[in-house]
């Protein structure tokens, strides 16, 4: 049984339901690699400008402009530089990169070729999370095919641009999807995030200038090169152009992956595309961006799914994973799972993250069991506040914000546990 076919398609996932699309023959028969050929005839500066004008925002979670990120590569170089493709996808509720890796591996290779040409990278390291066995096999097969057809390695495009891709598999650590932790892991070390900017001029793998891009970000590139900026900007919003892949999970009739324009209202995704809440129940809250983003309550679901709108509600698009919870859901149990995840996955480098995540989990567990007090809720708020803005990477902020979001919108659930000395939500999912 495989989770392989998107529920709605757009340019990114068109043909993804078709097994042949994962093969070189099937991919080229549907127009594949023509954008790469075009890009390899272009100058890097032209490609950079094209992507900058397209307004493509990175799809790995931060929503930064991809063109601006590429410009961080130093213009003068005295040796090799690299592209790293982040396929570390581990954000709970997010599973978009997986579909692209498994079902459209040649599209990713084409995107990699375009980004590598634009940034002058001579080699790409594709870092795939260790648990994605099937994705790694699909990419291995596709890379082999692309080599024998001369798109990679030595071959037909070699005179203009020789490029190759090396797959490195992660080994089970959420934090390795954060780019600096990923680079450490790629170098064969513990996957602990680096202090910001140890060397001038952006990121480095093996001490050489490096660009890191998400799988989905790279998969947009062939389409932008092929159809141009105006076409790309005809999807999505002014500030957030293009489509994206929304993963919908939890309490919906039809969970799945939906490719839709950025800016599609959250409630439309949940109620129209995913066909609403089962058993005639009402929605209680939705986490719009994957587990480590703040939750939105039922009254705020008309928000367009684009960073400019979500930010106004202290939420973020993140990796586009929508986790939907119905009215039976105990939000203290949700907090328990979320804090447990952060405790488990903190890499432990920063005291406030390591200790804070442990504290959050302990306090929430106590509240969930009905042995917590009002003071515990106040301490919980205090611990979350002290985790914000201090740590080496964004993980501690995420932990704080997700717990703060639950307290902001579902304070009543926490209070009720203290008042009644037990969980008042008998019908909630089990812990």
């Amino acid at each position: 049984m495989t989770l392989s076919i998107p529920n709605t398609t757009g340019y990114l996932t068109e043909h993804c339901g078709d097994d042949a699309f994962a093969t070189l023959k099937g991919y080229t028969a549907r127009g594949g690699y023509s954008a790469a050929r075009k890009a390899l005839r272009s100058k890097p500066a032209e490609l950079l400008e094209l992507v900058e004008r397209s307004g493509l925002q990175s799809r790995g979670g931060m929503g930064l402009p991809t063109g601006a990120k590429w410009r961080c590569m130093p213009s003068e170089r005295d040796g090799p530089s690299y592209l790293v493709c982040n396929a570390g996808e581990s954000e709970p509720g997010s599973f978009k990169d997986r579909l692209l890796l498994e079902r459209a591996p040649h599209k990713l290779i084409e995107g990699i070729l375009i980004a590598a040409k634009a940034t002058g990278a001579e080699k790409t390291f594709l870092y795939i999370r260790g648990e994605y066995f099937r994705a790694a096999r699909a990419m291995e097969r596709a890379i082999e095919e692309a080599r024998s057809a001369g798109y990679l390695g030595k071959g037909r495009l070699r005179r203009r641009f020789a490029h190759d891709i090396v797959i490195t598999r992660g080994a089970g650590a959420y934090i390795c999807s954060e780019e600096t932790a990923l680079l450490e892991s790629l170098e064969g070390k513990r996957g602990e995030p680096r202090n910001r900017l140890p060397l001038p001029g952006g990121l480095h793998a093996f001490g050489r200038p490096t660009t890191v891009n998400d799988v989905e970000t790279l998969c947009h590139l062939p389409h932008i090169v092929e159809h141009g900026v105006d076409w790309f900007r005809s999807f999505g919003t002014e500030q957030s152009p293009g489509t994206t892949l929304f993963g919908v999970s939890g309490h919906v009739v039809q969970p799945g992956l939906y490719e839709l324009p950025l800016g599609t209202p959250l409630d439309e995704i949940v109620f129209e595309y995913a066909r609403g809440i089962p058993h005639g129940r009402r929605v209680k809250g939705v986490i719009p961006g994957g587990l480590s983003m703040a939750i939105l309550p039922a009254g705020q679901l008309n928000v367009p799914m684009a960073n400019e709108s979500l930010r106004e509600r202290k939420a973020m698009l993140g990796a586009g994973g929508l986790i939907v919870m119905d009215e039976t859901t105990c939000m203290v149990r949700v907090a328990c799972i979320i804090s447990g995840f952060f405790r488990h996955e903190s890499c432990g480098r920063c005291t406030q993250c390591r200790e804070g995540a442990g504290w959050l989990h302990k306090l929430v567990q106590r509240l969930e069991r009905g042995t917590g007090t009002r003071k515990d809720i106040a301490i919980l708020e205090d611990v979350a506040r002290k985790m914000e803005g201090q740590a080496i990477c964004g993980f501690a902020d995420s932990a704080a914000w997700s717990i703060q979001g639950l307290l902001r919108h579902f304070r009543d659930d926490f209070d009720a546990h203290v008042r009644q000395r037990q969980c008042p939500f008998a019908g909630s999912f089990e812990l």
Partner: protein
Amino acid sequence: MILGDAIRAEIDELATRYPERRGALLPALHLVEREHGHISPDATRELADLFGLRPNEVLAVVSFYEMFGTEPRGRHRAGVCTNLPCSLRGARTLLAQLELHLGVRAGETTDDGRLTLGREECLGACAAAPMMRVDEVDHEHLDFEKASAILDGLE
């Protein structure tokens, strides 16, 4: 020597793909883990030699990653995802049922050494929850009947 010639040759080949030899350490650990089921102290020492590292440095890497272990485990490994999207659809109830069925708690191995049961963080199959990974394969849309039949069918 616990690492055979074939694996050593494979590690040497992997090392040529990286600008620094150490880039091949994670791939090498995957190879050893797959062949031996865990990374033993002997394997750690030999890997350290192959990479010009101290055994402690290799151990520090091994201990960081969930997929590498220093102790032998069951012949098969099953992990039920218990992150939020799966839990909303009954994953924790399923895990409790499987624990009862197998007579082990999550993290333990059955007495016959056949199976280690565990929990996983999100494995990117949230729309097919609940789900579990058995060795290299994901099983999706599970209930107790399906999941226990899959586990009972393992050699």
